[in-house]
């Protein structure tokens, strides 16, 4: 088909397409030649490496296990643990009364009843004080059998009211899970009462690392610093060096030019972030605690971190470059904005959405995205933190610090959608303001 017979729309689009890629490619090459780009990139990689080293150290170290239910002790010194004596009906306080079997190592009764919670259970009802609530029940989760063997003397003394069904779900030695008012996990007594400290530590520290690194390291720090150094001067630097004349003295609208410049910036930062996230996901996926050789379940968390950070980098980049269009002190304005975002990030982490003012920030919405996906993926988080705090397990505080429940939508998916729309909306509005200002800007 000859040029003259080509439809107008196709011809116009082809030209726009050529120009857009030319500006994007030019912007990318410009970044490539700037020392500041490499400096910020290397600083990011160094920090990531440093934090990863701490993570690896944490994952490869062991902590002292604690016997939370105290049944591994040999009170009477007859060589049998309390648990074994209770199992065979002998008196744990009487050194002359012991089971007629081989004494098992005391360590067998440490960490012997770990958390068994998951949402895969049978539908059931719980009835306390005449109030019925629907939920999911897990059965056969009493790993050490001390709840099942209620005949044990000590247990009879301790269990008290409710017997084997202390959670009133009409199932003995079960775990009742209700999602009616947030996640509520209630096990029967002597179910999940001696968790694996090391497993808990490694799991919670891993999750805390992923969430902390995702929210602070990526979403906030990368989200702020990459745009600060790479986007603020996107138009301003060209104006200052007077080279902008070459680029805009062409048959291309300034608004369009600005959009393509931002496009180059997006491609660069998104590629950088995606590479880093991919590498960290690989490392933590192999090193982190898992039944499999790799933590496949984390992929969606890391994907949400990448997604949130990309949206934030987009929003911050558009805001900072617009500052640059308005004033030569764009960098200063961006730093002030960064301080505001830092305060909002801290408030968001502390209050997990309870401070309304945090909604006036970019970082809040980015963190909401991560929280919504992590809540969905790691649905046992609240239970882990709740049990960890109860037993004072190592790792629970760190996990609690970075764990957040999304406070906007009624479901994680709604939160994800609302937060995404808001971040894109902010970007679009600021872009419109920026390109309008750029169109009216006189280049002296």
């Amino acid at each position, binding site marked *: 088909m000859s040029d003259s017979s080509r439809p107008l729309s196709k011809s116009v689009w082809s*030209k726009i397409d*050529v120009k857009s890629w*030319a500006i994007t490619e*030019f912007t990318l090459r410009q970044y490539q*030649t700037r020392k500041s780009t490499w400096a910020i990139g290397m600083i990011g990689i160094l920090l990531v490496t440093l934090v990863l080293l701490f993570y690896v150290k944490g994952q490869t170290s062991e902590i002292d296990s604690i016997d939370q239910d105290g049944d591994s002790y040999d009170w009477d010194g007859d060589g049998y643990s309390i648990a074994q004596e209770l199992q065979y009906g002998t008196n744990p306080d009487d050194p002359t009364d012991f089971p007629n079997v081989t004494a098992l190592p005391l360590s067998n009764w440490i960490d012997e009843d770990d958390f068994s919670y998951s949402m895969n259970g049978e539908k059931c009802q719980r009835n306390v004080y005449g109030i019925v609530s629907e939920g999911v029940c897990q059965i056969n989760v009493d790993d050490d059998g001390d709840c099942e063997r209620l005949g044990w003397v000590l247990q009879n003394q301790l269990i008290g009211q409710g017997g084997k069904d202390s959670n009133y779900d009409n199932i003995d030695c079960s775990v009742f899970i209700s999602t009616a008012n947030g996640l509520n996990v209630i096990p029967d007594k002597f179910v999940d009462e001696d968790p694996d400290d090391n497993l808990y530590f490694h799991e919670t520290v891993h999750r805390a690392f992923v969430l902390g690194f995702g929210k602070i390291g990526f979403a906030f720090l990368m989200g702020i610093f990459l745009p600060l150094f790479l986007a603020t001067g996107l138009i301003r630097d060209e104006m200052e060096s007077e080279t902008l004349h*070459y680029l805009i003295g*062409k*048959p*291309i609208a*300034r608004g369009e030019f600005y959009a393509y410049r931002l496009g180059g910036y997006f491609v660069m930062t998104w590629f950088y972030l995606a590479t880093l996230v991919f590498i960290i996901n690989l490392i933590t996926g192999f090193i982190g605690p898992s039944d499999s050789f790799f933590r496949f379940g984390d992929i969606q968390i890391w994907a949400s971190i990448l997604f949130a950070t990309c949206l934030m980098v987009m929003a911050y980049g558009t805001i900072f470059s617009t500052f640059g269009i308005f004033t030569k002190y764009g960098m200063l304005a961006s730093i002030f904005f960064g301080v505001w975002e830092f305060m909002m990030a801290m408030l968001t982490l502390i209050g997990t959405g309870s401070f309304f003012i945090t909604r006036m920030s970019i970082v809040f919405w980015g963190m909401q995205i991560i929280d919504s996906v992590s809540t969905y993926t790691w649905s046992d988080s609240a239970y882990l933190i709740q049990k960890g705090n109860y037993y004072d397990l190592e790792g629970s505080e760190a996990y609690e610090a970075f764990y957040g429940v999304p406070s906007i939508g009624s479901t994680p998916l709604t939160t994800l959608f609302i937060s995404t729309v808001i971040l894109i909306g902010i970007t679009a509005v600021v872009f419109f303001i920026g390109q309008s200002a750029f169109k009216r800007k006189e280049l002296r």
Partner: protein
Amino acid sequence: MNSNDIPEKKAAETNVVPALMLDHVSKWYGNIVGLNDVSIAINGGVTGLLGMNGAGKSTLFKLIVGKLKPSQGTVRLFGIDPWKNKSPFSRIGYVPEHEKLYDWMTAFEFVTIMARLFGHSRDDAEERAKHVLTFVGLDDVMHKELGKYSKGMRQRAKIAQALVNDPDLIILDEPLQGCDPLARTTIMNVIRELGSMGKTIVVSSHILSEIERITEQIVILHNGRLLALGNLHAIRDLLDKHPHRISLTTTQPRELASKFLKHESVYGVHFPAENELLIETHDLGKVHKDMPLILDNSGIRVTGIENPDDNLESILEYLMEGR
């Protein structure tokens, strides 16, 4: 060049849309006047825009290429307002005054990317870049980084990027500034050749002799105002009737002075230095015409002749006297 107090009316009468038209255009920077009520229309040929530093040349160009918005009046490029509509930019090439370039790029890459910004495909853009870089004489060094270019080479690279879309109107802001004599000659040849190709070219300078070597059509700006426009030789003829000085370098200034004092157009002589004679005349052209005969008859050796008043300042001074 067409000029009129009301260029739009003139253009309408001739039914031709000029490449460039300014109608009572003024530009203020706060309280400072950059351009004051300028009206011109240019269509075809090479036009020299003359003016001292701060005369308003760059302001005029920036208004033309849509970098500035006029405070008053209208600017039209091929009949279109360049501030509102960027479409005329596909027909113009602009060489800015400043020296800044993307030093990390080669001239070939630079011109290629500029061509792509006009909407040309990569292959087409590369072809065009090669062509224009050869045209401006940078074919041997087009793959060298711009940062390693001399001043003259950088100016030629800037001209090449302006030519890459085969524009109808080319605007060159002080293209010879800072160039060595060889580079000046090359650039002047390029401009002349472009003029002969039928392009409309506007080139600015504050050095009269430079413009004189390129074109006869001139526009003179002074303090933001349009001082004169027309044929340079006509202006110079008027200037020649004005008191003028000729400086001669010789070992016998006094002997030579006696010969020149006999000339009807010479009304005074001075000796500013030991080997220098300064002649004052009312008719520069006639003295220059008779000078070879006077020197030949005197037998005195002259090693240098200069016209210190044959510059833009003198023209401006002369033109300002009439105001």
